[in-house]
């Protein structure tokens, strides 16, 4: 079954075609088909997993490919490769996709284009699975673009809203800039090794087939693609705006799966990154992103925006782990983060439905009374994110701290700060939304707990947020599908047996406590007087944070003034220089020459006779001169 894992991608792909073609006419607009599809791939995943484990480590990675196209010496194969890292991604994608599909049935009820939403969701799942199954970079790129397309379509689902259209456009174009880099990098790999196959490339690189400088340049281009998709600085701007999409989409695409594609790519190619000496770049970018978005998250008031910046920040954590050379730590954080962040987003979605489309923290508060299940699961998710022992987030963050330990005190200090910030804004988010008194009685009076179709996925994900961290343990992992525990399973050239470092646990807990209590103290019981202290004390700084350090403004300026300005210049050049001067100009010159020369045409016979006679004389003389 493992070598036929492509079926996983084929099932939602077919579902997409069926639903796009017939969706509107199916009973219930085909949402049952979507859930059925998600369930079946969830089940198929276990079939793949069982088969994969049965084959045993010797048979890994499981390969299956066909010849795709050939022109002369240029041969191209397409296929799948299933190895532990793929299995981890498959686990995340199928699980979260199932939860989101179920949740969406409740969330999207009565929304416009209900069928289209589910159809595109299947397209996304198919592409995402293809992305992680691909055995070569070209297929990966194809899937990479297709997930981008699905993301574009889903962010812009409410296209009657101008802001949704703008956000979709921004997401597509920003990631597209990174994709240019990725494609260049992929082709540079082919240029150096003559293959797109990931395993072959790693093999060639380890043999030293690519020169140092060239390899470094290639990896920088690849990294651009990863940064664009994973919203790393300075490409992060699209992710918060992407919250214009329906909330379940944010949970699936913009928290759990698509945005971690960059992390997945870097983890996949980690040996190459290391050979190229590019790990430090990854580390620094991740660290900057983690700190930057942690700070910006403080000043956000929209639940989803806070979660979005939190996601950016957590992706930064993953990059930091990869940059430190610990693929397992990065992948583990990816794994746990997928569950609790999906939980938080779906929780936010539940809040939005329960309060009838309100997501500003300033209007909420005290929701736990009205929505106990949502509040409870959200609390679990928050604590997991903030890193409470022994929830999932704690273990993965612990791994990252452990990884960074080796990179020097400075980096360790900064990543600790970032961890505190995580706990702080998470606490702020939970306290302001669920605790204290309702800020708006009108909204509060209408608030109801959402139905089971939405709360059940929350409960399941909350459960996963608690237990997912335990996969790091040897015995637990072996018992539940990851033999040897997570980090041994996904060792990827970095055998790193896990053991609990109690010193780190203590430190980690201390970071959690500082951050959480800080956040809770500031915002407890709707005490906005405390929380506005910062804004009053340093209004400039506060504004800077609130304006996201002016990144968006800078980009807007660059696009409006520089890019479009250049375009106007080129258009002007084309009109006036090339067309009016060059093309029409030559026509005008011809006309003007005719205007001048027509005066030779006097219409008087003697003039013509004169010309003939003079011509005869001249020609005779010339022919005589030439002849002699």
């Amino acid at each position, binding site marked *: 079954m493992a070598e036929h894992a492509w079926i996983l991608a084929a099932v939602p792909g077919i579902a997409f075609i069926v639903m796009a073609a017939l969706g509107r006419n199916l009973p219930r607009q085909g949402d049952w088909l979507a859930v059925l599809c998600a369930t079946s791939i969830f089940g198929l995943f276990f079939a793949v997993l069982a088969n994969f484990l049965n084959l045993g480590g010797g048979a890994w990675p499981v390969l299956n490919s066909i010849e795709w196209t050939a022109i002369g010496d240029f041969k191209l194969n397409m296929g799948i490769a299933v190895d532990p890292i793929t299995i981890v991604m498959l686990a995340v994608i199928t699980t979260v996709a199932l939860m989101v599909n179920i949740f969406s049935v409740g969330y999207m009820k009565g929304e416009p284009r209900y069928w289209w939403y589910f159809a595109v969701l299947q397209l996304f799942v198919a592409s995402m699975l293809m992305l992680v199954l691909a055995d070569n970079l070209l297929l990966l790129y194809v899937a990479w673009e297709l997930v981008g397309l699905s993301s574009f379509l889903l962010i812009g689902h409410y296209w009657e809203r101008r802001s949704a259209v703008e956000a979709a456009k921004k997401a597509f174009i920003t990631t597209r800039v990174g994709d240019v880099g990725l494609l260049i990098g992929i082709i540079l790999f082919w240029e150096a090794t003559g293959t797109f196959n990931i395993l072959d490339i790693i093999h060639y690189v380890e043999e030293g087939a690519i020169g140092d400088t060239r390899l470094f340049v290639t990896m920088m281009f690849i990294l651009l693609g990863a940064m664009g998709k994973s919203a790393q600085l300075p490409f992060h701007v699209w992710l918060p705006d992407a919250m214009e999409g329906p909330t379940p989409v944010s949970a699936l695409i913009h928290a759990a799966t698509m945005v971690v594609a960059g992390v997945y790519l870097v983890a996949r190619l980690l040996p190459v990154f290391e050979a190229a000496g590019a790990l430090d770049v990854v580390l620094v970018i991740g660290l900057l992103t983690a700190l930057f978005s942690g700070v910006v998250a403080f000043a956000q008031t929209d639940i989803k925006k806070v979660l979005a910046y939190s996601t950016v920040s957590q992706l930064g954590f993953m990059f930091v782990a990869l940059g430190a050379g610990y693929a397992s730590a990065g992948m583990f954080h990816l794994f746990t983060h997928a569950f609790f962040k999906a939980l938080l987003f779906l929780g936010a979605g539940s809040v939005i439905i329960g309060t009838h489309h309100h997501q500003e923290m300033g209007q909420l508060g005290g929701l736990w009374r009205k929505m106990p299940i949502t509040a409870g699961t959200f609390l679990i998710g928050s604590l997991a994110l903030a890193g409470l022992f022994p929830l999932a987030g704690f273990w993965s963050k612990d791994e990252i701290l452990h990884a960074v330990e080796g990179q020097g005190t400075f980096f360790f200090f900064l990543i600790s700060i970032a961890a505190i910030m995580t706990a702080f804004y998470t606490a702020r988010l939970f306290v302001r939304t669920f605790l204290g008194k309702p800020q708006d009685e009108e909204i509060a009076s209408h608030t109801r707990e959402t139905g089971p179709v939405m709360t059940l996925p929350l409960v399941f994900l909350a459960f996963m947020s608690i237990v997912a961290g335990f996969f790091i343990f040897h015995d637990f992992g072996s018992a539940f599908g990851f033999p040897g525990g997570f980090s041994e399973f996904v060792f990827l050239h970095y055998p790193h047996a896990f053991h609990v470092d109690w010193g780190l646990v203590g430190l980690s807990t201390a970071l959690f406590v500082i951050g959480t209590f800080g956040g809770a103290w500031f915002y407890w019981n709707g005490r906005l007087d405390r929380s506005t202290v910062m804004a009053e004390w340093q209004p400039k700084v506060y504004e800077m944070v609130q304006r996201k350090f002016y990144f968006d403004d800078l980009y807007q300026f660059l696009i409006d003034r520089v890019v479009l300005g250049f375009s106007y210049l080129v258009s002007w050049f084309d009109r006036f220089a090339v067309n009016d001067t060059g093309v029409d100009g030559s026509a005008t010159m011809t006309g003007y020459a005719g205007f001048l020369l027509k005066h030779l045409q006097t219409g008087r016979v*003697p*003039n013509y006779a*004169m010309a003939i*006679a*003079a011509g*005869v*004389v001249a020609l*005779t*003389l010339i022919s*005589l001169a030439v002849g002699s």
Partner: protein
Amino acid sequence: MTTEVLWWIFAVAIVAVSAGVVFARTVIHSAIFLILSLAGVGAMYLFLTIEFIALVQFLIYGGAVTVLILLALMLTRMGIAGRPEPTTGVQAPFGALVAAGLMATLIGVAVSTAWPGDLGQNAVAVSIENIGEQMFQNFGAPFMITAALLLVAFIGAIVIARQEDED
């Protein structure tokens, strides 16, 4: 020897009357000079001992064509009315220049070229029988065409010059 002297006298006379054609003040004078010039050229044909062509020259040119021209002059009442306006156009000086250049070229070419197969003093007379044979054996078709051309041309001339009713 006498022939040559006579030839030179005729040659100078032809040049003189030809100049008279183009420089004469009135058109009638030009016409008279033209008749003399044509007759002179006819005489030249006699010097070449080709009597046939000389006869043609006298009959057609000296007779028919000049009569035609005089007729035209009378019809257009030119030469009768002494017109005050200049008889030469503005481009006369340039015309003189071009004509002089042409003359120099023609004379230069005529003198400097070594004509192949030049019989010189041994030139024999072309018999009228020979001309007749050549004309009707080798140039029959052009002869016919010329005849047709003449017919067409004169019909055309009549059509063009016809007095129309509305005039």
